[in-house]
């Protein structure tokens, strides 16, 4: 039983490592509650239904990107028949990018922080507020 301190010590280290994410999040003050999003003022609808945007906006953005940049497809007809300019900067961020904060639009950032993802869109696309 001379190994007892070693075994116990190892177990403690193991437990500390396994539960590290819990401690880390507790210390960083993150919570498991979903983020509260402030919807763009004066806008009632998006280019696609909310449920679709929640799960697949990234795919839609990639399709827009490939369409506008590579195939010169600059107009998007939405599910409700409305047409939109295919542009992250000038369509999406026109509504969602107005509440500026460091790095990325507030609307986008809250969810991205919650999901722990850091998309690089804002390295180039501007979300400065417009008057």
């Amino acid at each position, binding site marked *: 039983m001379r190994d007892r301190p070693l075994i116990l010590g190892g177990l403690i280290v193991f437990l500390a490592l396994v539960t590290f994410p819990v401690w880390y999040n507790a210390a960083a003050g993150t919570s498991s509650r979903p983020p509260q999003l402030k919807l763009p003022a004066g806008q009632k609808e998006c280019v*696609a239904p909310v449920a*679709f945007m929640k799960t*697949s906006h990234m*795919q*839609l953005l990639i*399709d827009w*990107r490939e*369409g506008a*940049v*590579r*195939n*010169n*497809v*600059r*107009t*998007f*007809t*939405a*599910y409700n028949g409305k*047409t939109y300019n*295919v542009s992250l*900067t*000038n369509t999406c961020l026109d509504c969602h990018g107005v509440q500026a904060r460091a790095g990325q639009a507030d609307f986008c950032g809250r969810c991205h922080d919650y999901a722990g993802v850091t998309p*690089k869109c804002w*390295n*180039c*696309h*501007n*979300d*400065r507020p*417009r008057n």
Partner: protein
Amino acid sequence: MTRKGFLGVTGISAAVLAARKLRSVFAASGPAASPPVRWAMVIDTQKCLKKAGCIDCIAACHKVHNVPEIKDRAHEIKWVWKEPFKQAFPAQETAYTEEAYKGKPFPVLCNHCDNPPCVRVCPTKATWKREDGLVMMDWHRCIGCRYCMAACPYGSRSFNWVDPRPHLRRIDIEFPTRTKGVVEKCTFCAERLARGQAPACVQACKEQKALVFGNLADPDSDVSRLVRSRFTLRRKPGLGTNPEVYYIIG
């Protein structure tokens, strides 16, 4: 409706709309059934040189495209700029051209070659030639290998050696900036052409009318008439790249 179906339907309708819009923009030229388009530029250097020290085209281009002003020459980014005659047309110089054109710079930009070496070498298709002749850049895909810069015989490409944003005095929010590590160049204002507008440099040169832009595939366009009626030069024609920027010298 599945996501795939949803995107499919919207994609098709978008393509139709885009085509319709393009056609309406250039309805004046050619028959309705998608006429061939080959964008080109003619630069009347006599008109350009008349207004000494003018940099309207450069300023306009660099403003709408968020091209940074970087003091360090090594890290410079330029889409349109000016070169002395000897540098712009190295094969055309004589012992006297330097004197003749002393202090008279010539505007140079991406030639949107018909046979672009930059496109040939790009390992990811981040730069490619569109059917209407525009040599495009996809800043999302560029890996920053700079092979295109080695391939371009005109020095038309710039690389973002550093983050460009701190070097922008003001940002035009309608056009994205670039991120460090990608190559950029003139795109003949693809985003403005899509809206039916002339390139920003051409727009800026409205008074001098030294820059003429149009469809070379349309025999009645201004550019077509000019290249047929005037003697024009292209930069380094012997390389077989077929530049689509023409210069009227005399």
